[in-house]
């Protein structure tokens, strides 16, 4: 799998164009209560070999954005306006204009998505092997022996017992095994881009670590281009090169992982970081964000975060800020990002590892 991927890597560094570019993408769901504005004007470039984490709370539009890239949105959803450009081998297509048959090819070969709920992604009455074969054949890969060999290799890669899994029905596998099987299937056709929606949510801690380990190997050894979608900041901290924070359907901040975690410029990103404890790394006081997430049918005026924001002024109530460059490859949509910067000078964000050492020493002294 690495070969074609690496070749692609070189191509893209030569012509520098990102494999995926989203331009001003909007997604609405028509519901009885009204129009749910799930994604509102997302512009995003995904570069070859990078892993990007999309973080944000429940309902912020992360899954919707992922689904819009692979065109698997519910029929009630409308993508308008917006363009999603996909590039591979000098080829350039607008994903939103692909025909049904082109889409089928695109979904597994070019861009594969691993879903939030691993169980629903399987057909419950088919053994794993039959599903794999179906997927392969639908893409014109009919050499059963070759498919089987490759899939067995992939199962080994995701640290599963190949002979056991290949003949199993989905319900015979634990949640962690299903998630890993799904990851193996998604790699079958060597996609250029992998989108993983909540890859570790609802799994036990030790299983989460196994999955994180696997994704790290995909990233570091095979230089896969990946998007991780998660409400869990830890996934971003563990795996991402770049992080994008979503709030009310918008990317409100995007930047390199270290910048986002230690030098955030958006009050919402800062709020999330200050609300989440670490396990190791000392005892830290935590703060919650007041209020609750917005109603996507009746969004607040101006900056959608203003009702919960401690930096908000009248301007925030009236005008919605656009993403603005605040550092190297670091963008924030906040009128008052400089105030956030000042706030962080006064109260810097922990450096986890250093704190932990200090704490360990104090407990030794206390003894």
């Amino acid at each position: 799998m690495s070969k074609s991927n690496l070749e692609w890597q070189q191509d893209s560094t030569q012509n520098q164009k990102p494999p995926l570019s989203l331009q001003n993408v909007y997604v609405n769901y028509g519901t009885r209560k009204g129009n749910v504005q799930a994604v509102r004007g997302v512009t995003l470039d995904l570069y070859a070999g990078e892993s990007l984490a999309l973080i944000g709370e429940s309902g912020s539009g992360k899954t919707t954005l992922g689904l819009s890239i692979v065109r698997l949105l519910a029929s009630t959803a409308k993508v308008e306006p917006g363009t999603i450009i996909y590039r591979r081998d000098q080829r350039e297509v607008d994903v939103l204009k692909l025909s049904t048959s082109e889409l089928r090819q695109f979904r597994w070969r070019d861009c594969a998505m691993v879903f939030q709920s691993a169980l629903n992604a399987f057909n419950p009455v088919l053994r794993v092997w039959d599903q794999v074969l179906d997927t392969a054949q639908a893409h014109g890969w009919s050499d059963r022996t070759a498919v089987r060999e490759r899939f067995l290799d992939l199962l080994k890669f995701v640290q599963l017992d190949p002979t056991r899994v290949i003949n199993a029905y989905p319900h015979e596998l634990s949640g962690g095994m299903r998630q890993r099987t799904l990851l193996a299937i998604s790699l079958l056709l060597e996609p250029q881009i992998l989108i993983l929606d909540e890859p570790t949510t609802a799994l036990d801690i030790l299983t989460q670590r196994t999955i994180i380990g696997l994704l790290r190997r995909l990233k570091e050894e095979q230089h896969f281009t990946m998007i991780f979608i998660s409400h869990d900041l830890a996934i971003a901290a563990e795996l991402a090169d770049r992080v994008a924070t979503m709030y009310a359907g918008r990317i409100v901040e995007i930047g390199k992982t270290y910048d986002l975690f230690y030098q955030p410029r958006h009050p919402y990103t800062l709020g999330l970081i200050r609300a989440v404890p670490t396990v190791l790394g000392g005892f830290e006081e935590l703060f919650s964000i007041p209020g609750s997430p917005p109603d996507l049918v009746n969004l607040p005026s101006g900056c959608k975060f203003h009702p919960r924001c401690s930096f908000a002024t009248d301007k925030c109530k009236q005008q919605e800020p656009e993403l603005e460059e605040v550092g190297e490859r670091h963008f924030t949509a906040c009128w008052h990002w400089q105030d956030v910067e000042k706030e962080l000078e006064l109260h810097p964000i922990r450096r986890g590892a250093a704190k932990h050492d200090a704490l360990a020493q104090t407990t030794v002294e206390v003894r």
Partner: protein
Amino acid sequence: MVPIIELKNVSKFFGHGKERVTAVDSISLAVEPGEIVCLVGESGCGKSTTGRMAAGLLPVSAGQVLFDGKDIAQMNRDELQTYRRAVQIVHQDPYASLNPTQTIRDIITAPLLHHKKVKDRTHAEKRARELLEIVDLTPVHDFMDKYPHQLSGGQRQRVSVARALTVEPKFIVADEAVSMVDVSIRVSLLNMLSRLKNEFDVTFLFITHDLALAKYFAWQGRIVVMYLGRMVEEGPTPRLITDARHPYTQALLAAVPEADPELAQHKRQIELRGAEIPSLLHLPLGCTFHPRCPYIVEGQCDVHVPRLEAIREGGSVACPVRKDESIQLVV
């Protein structure tokens, strides 16, 4: 001090014959009044079963549950009623436990009137307002006439806490009470619970699979780690987090994804010998962690069930091999 709740060699079996499993295996745990004890461990290790037995919602298969020093199996009706009221459970999914056809007003006033905690409707109304205030559902008048489905997950969880408070409990089992709530509001729920502990002398058994939450909530208290129905380690939270001794506790701490890139980079990786958690139907002999443990001593760990032994640094560890060995988890 007399523990408010004490479990003495409590076990729970489910099923019969070949299907019989030991979901909780001989747990002993005493919770002092005002203490915060946190039960952690992976899915299926017996946390909820233990919590339900402590709250008297599930009969024990063996052992005793003591409330204020008295065995609940020996209690008369009045004593049992006192115990039942004094101990309340708050569940993970408040939606399932709140009646969707009742307004918040009804949900809170009904138990007040039923348990004769107030004279009449007017007093019930007044008390309901106070309780909603305590759980930070303010302004109260915005919430009284709403139905559960009109509230967010975090707000519903506050309602179920307010409802638990109607009977003036002394002991609350909070079973994954904040796990389903968005991160941005989780902390305020936790802080609200801490306040109840301080202002209303409520003692907490806090159940969670999230070690970071356990650490934050129980920093002044104790963490108990369970694996396959047994207690494997227990101790004051700061000790347990910075100087865990049981190989399973260490593996958990090392495995937890950290919301801090620096820490994520510097965490030690612990390789276990086996990835899959054994089924309760086929429990390994001896220490049930031995098939996965990197420190196994053959002929010992796979034969003898380790007992919890106290360690000098605080708490106790069920691993004679490693109980006196510290390791660094941040490198």
